């Protein structure tokens, strides 16, 4: 049985923890709002890009000189997994759910005899994947020092991916990130980015009537690499929003648990205090009776 003093100390320390988790929750909530706004602001660009590319690629997918980024290399021997995770932990199952998805995918590919290469974005993913796939990791990008995630950072990742692709280092690239569904639900998602895939449903019927300046091929060749950067950018923003969402709900849980703990500890503290008073009274009374 812990003494009164021990209990008092425990209560004080749990209270301190609760204060910290509460503060972290508030910070995450504020950052989540900003991240969500950023993700929403980036949506129009990505949507239009997708629409334009869907039209263009439908028109030129069958021609012989279609760019490799669109059609792929025709093989699927070497896979590149781009795994985007958070820079920090303390966000519930956020990082581990992305990593689990990526790892399952990697193991499946390996068991089929394919070659797997991994590019990690974010410190957490790198730390964990390094344990089991040390020799598969080809590159690692971290945004530790970056305060506001911009297109520049996404472009940096895209350039690395494109350089690898142009060097013939891989055939298929898949991007792993957590899609932001709501504050309490983030869905780990795998998205294939090379060869490119578009939602063909919304191809406008007027696509064929377009005039292209300079040529259709030139535009396509310029847009496809940029599309990679846009896709990565979107994934990073979604990931960022998901991270803060996950952190917020994790910290909310932690605060609640700390509250429960404090209640329980206070109860046993009071009970013990009363027991002690009763004991002292009994001692006094029995002492008086003995006289």
């Amino acid at each position: 049985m812990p003494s009164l003093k021990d209990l008092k100390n425990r209560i004080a320390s749990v209270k301190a923890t609760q204060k910290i988790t509460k503060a972290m929750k508030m910070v995450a909530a504020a950052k989540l709002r900003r991240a969500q706004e950023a993700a929403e602001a980036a949506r129009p660009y990505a949507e239009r890009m997708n629409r334009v590319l869907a039209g263009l690629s439908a028109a030129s997918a069958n021609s012989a000189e279609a760019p490799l980024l669109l059609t792929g290399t025709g093989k699927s021997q070497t896979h590149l997994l781009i795994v985007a995770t958070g820079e920090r932990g303390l966000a519930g199952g956020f990082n581990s759910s992305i990593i689990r998805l990526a790892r399952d995918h990697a193991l499946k590919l390996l068991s089929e005899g394919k070659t797997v290469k991994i590019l990690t974005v974010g410190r957490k993913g790198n730390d964990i994947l390094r344990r089991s796939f040390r020799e598969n990791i080809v590159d690692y990008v971290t945004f530790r020092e970056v305060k506001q995630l911009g297109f520049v950072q996404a472009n940096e990742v895209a350039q690395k991916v494109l350089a690898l692709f142009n060097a013939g280092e891989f055939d298929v690239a898949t991007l792993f990130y957590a899609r932001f569904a709501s504050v309490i639900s983030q869905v780990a998602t795998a998205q294939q980015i090379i060869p490119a895939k578009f939602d063909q449903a919304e191809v406008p019927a007027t696509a064929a009537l377009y005039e292209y300046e300079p040529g259709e091929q030139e535009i396509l060749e310029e847009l496809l690499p940029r599309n990679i950067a846009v896709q990565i950018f979107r994934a990073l923003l979604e990931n960022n929003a998901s991270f803060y969402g996950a952190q917020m709900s994790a910290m909310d849980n932690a605060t609640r648990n700390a509250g429960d703990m404090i209640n329980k500890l206070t109860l046993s503290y009071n009970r013990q205090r009363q027991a002690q008073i009763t004991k002292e009274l009994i001692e006094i009374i029995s002492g008086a009776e003995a006289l």
Partner: protein
Amino acid sequence: MADSFDFELVSPERLLVSEKVTEVIIPATLGEMTVLAKHAPTMTTIKPGVLTVKLVSGQVKKYVVFGGFADILPSGCTVLAESAVAQEDANRDLFQQRIEALRADISDAPTDEHRTKLEHMLAELTHLNHSILPG
């Protein structure tokens, strides 16, 4: 009074303009072009330059854009810029950063063709820098 149409200027980070306009001048790769309402559907890439927008109210706004492309339809025009700022906000540092980044790219360009393209871009950018911020 000229017909108006919808114009949107978007960069990967945000939507900069979404308004009714009567006229837009786009710095297209093959030369500047003016877009009016009911333009034929056209898709063009753009080079670094100044994009001029004339609003329905007659007010003229200018934006500095760095590459991207424009999607023009009879009903409207959308410019997807790689990066864009209002001309008032353009400053020397912004250009300097880009010019330096481009120079670095040129020095490790893999092919001559690629290098020529980059040098062309550099020339455009330097020219733009001088025309917007003289002296």
